[in-house]
């Protein structure tokens, strides 16, 4: 017994501080958040205990999920995530594929594509708000003006002010910002594939397409999965970019994170916490299978 303690003790002691900190500040607070979300704590008076709040279990969740406004936010979130994911994956892969061939100035292009990631979402959001100005015709500016100048007038549109697809316009700057990161991931993946494999495939008479289809793509799939997970969870948590291009009250660009902020500002802590919990669950739905998967493959 004592021997066991001696062996396990020091490592446990070393880990303990971070365990405690993570336990209290991450899992503890998730617990508090969940506990708040199942109460009817919707007013400032209840938040400070001036008036009682009772546990209503999942009523907040049901009310939220049943409300048209929140459904609109969820739809926006899905639209945003799909476009953001597809956009970054396609752009990132295409760039990596092009840079993987021996090209002159590879380092230069790599930096160019990776650079937008160094800009904060808030700063780029302000610039993109001007670029995505929804005026058309004479008073147009930003991208709409650019389309006019190059004779592509029919491409003018109202960008993020479209009621249904406005949120997709905000995915454009997000794609611009993170495609370079996906490119870097894929490029590392390409570089990790030994040349011998390509040579062997060519020796066996594989065409270029077959080479990619049967040799390179399978080797890249773990990278693609990681990229999907990383971009996916970033997309679900998107808040700063949307806030700096649009405004919290704008209906066309509402997402759950914005709802959470608006609820909190009106002292509706229960709904705010419920939205937070829903977001956490959505992110977990994406991440947990991935963790299980990678855990299994490590054991193997």
């Amino acid at each position: 017994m004592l021997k066991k303690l001696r062996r396990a003790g020091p490592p446990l002691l070393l880990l303990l501080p971070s365990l405690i900190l993570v336990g209290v500040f991450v899992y503890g607070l998730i617990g508090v958040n969940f506990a708040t979300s199942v109460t009817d704590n919707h007013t400032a008076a209840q938040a400070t205990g001036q008036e009682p709040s009772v546990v209503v279990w999942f009523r907040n969740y049901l009310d939220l999920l049943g409300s048209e406004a929140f459904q609109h936010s969820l739809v926006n979130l899905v639209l945003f995530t799909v476009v953001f994911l597809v956009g970054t994956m396609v752009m990132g892969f295409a760039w990596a594929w092009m840079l993987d061939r021996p090209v002159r100035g590879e380092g230069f292009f790599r930096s160019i594509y990776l650079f937008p990631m160094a800009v904060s979402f808030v700063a780029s959001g302000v610039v993109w708000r001007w670029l995505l100005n929804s005026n058309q015709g004479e008073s147009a500016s930003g991208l709409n003006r650019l389309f006019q100048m190059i004779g592509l007038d029919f491409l003018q549109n109202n960008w993020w002010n479209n009621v249904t697809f406005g949120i997709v316009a905000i995915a454009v700057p997000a794609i611009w910002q993170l495609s370079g990161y996906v490119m870097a991931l894929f490029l590392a993946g390409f570089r990790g594939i030994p040349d011998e494999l390509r040579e062997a495939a060519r020796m066996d008479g594989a065409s270029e397409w077959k080479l990619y289809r049967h040799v390179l793509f399978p080797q890249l799939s773990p990278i693609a999965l990681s990229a999907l997970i990383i971009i996916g969870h970033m997309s679900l948590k998107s808040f700063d970019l949307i806030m700096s291009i649009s405004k919290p009250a704008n209906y066309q660009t509402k997402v759950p994170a914005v709802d959470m902020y608006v609820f909190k500002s009106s002292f509706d802590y229960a709904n705010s916490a419920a939205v937070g919990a829903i977001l956490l669950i959505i992110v977990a739905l994406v991440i947990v299978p991935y963790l299980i998967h990678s855990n299994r493959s490590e054991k193997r």
Partner: protein
Amino acid sequence: MRLNRRTSATVAGAALVGLALAACGGGTDDGGTPEAGGGGGGEVEVFTWWAAGSEKAGLDALVGAFDEQHPDVTFVNGAVAGGAGSAAKDLLQTRLQAQDPPDTFQAHAGAELQDYIDAAQIEDVSALYDEFGLTDAFPADLLDRLSTEDGAIYSIPSNIHRANVVWANPTVLEDNGVDPEATYEDLDAWMADLDKLKAAGVTPLSVATTWTQVHLLETVLLANLGPEAYTGLWDGSTDWAGADVTASLEDFEKLMSYTNTDRDGLDWPEATQMVIDGNAAFNVMGDWAVAAFEEQDKKLGADFTAFPVPGTDGTFDFLADSFTLPVGAPNPDGAKAWLETVGSLEGQVAFNKAKGSIPARTDADPADFSEYQQTAIESFGSDTIVSSLAHGAATPVATLNAVSDATSKFTTGASDLATYQQELAAAVQG
């Protein structure tokens, strides 16, 4: 080097203690609340979002008056910049929740205080109104608007702004065949001219993001319903489902059709700038907009004109900044000293001359103020005073948020007028 077990255990223990200490150190930082002194002295932390521009100038002037009146109390600036006050309100929410209030904080006067009142976070200061003689100095209408149902008042206003003002560019009007001197009886008369401007190809009316649309909505409601029924919208005596509200919403819809399409991406300075630059003819905005014109050397009458929103002449749609006395303020005597200066004639004159708003007191000498301010002071003294919706005087925050959501949904085209009216009714009835 090889460590034996005991050494590594000791190291681990030390690391644990160190981390725990670091964690504690990080947790007790309370944002620099000053230690309270006893009696009337000490420091008074004044929490505002007046961190830049004319607001900062106003605060500095107010502090000047405070130092003269209360030399024994030291002013500590707790201003938080960012987001037109939303950053400050976020931080304030946290501090009040943690029972670490500043000595006094800025808040919009009126119903926006309701949440703090319900949460028992601020004190009734109506006794101070008597003590400082404010009951006679402020217009009776204003006191009515500030008092809660049981007659208590929870803050002292430092300044008054008027929301129902139209700003116009006379050059644009003249160039497009509209008489810049014209006065409009009601919204219909105004919209006839807006039609002319629209046909001429200029933006007749500029507006910005959701809150400015709510601002426009409230002036339309005020114009059509009149002050009494408008006030009734907030206390339940006017029916939101009524035909006159429907008519107002139709007018609002029509007015929105005259506005710039990039509105949701703009904030008020950009919308007002459109009028200054001649890109739009009219803009409905509160009278803080006058600072934007004056900063660019525009002269009232020659380069821009200002008049009450058509149909609201004789009504003063007010909003006000005010200061509170938080429950558990570290230095309540200091806070009271601050409130005394805020309500005093010297304090109000100094502050408002710099900020561009007008004093809540009626005994200030108009000659001290700018030309626009003089007209506003005159109206404030004689007009019926009603509370602004978009600026927190008329309703609590949650109601305003719900109204904003419904308005944004309507103006982006996601709901029709009937749905909009239902959602507004639901928002106000809670």
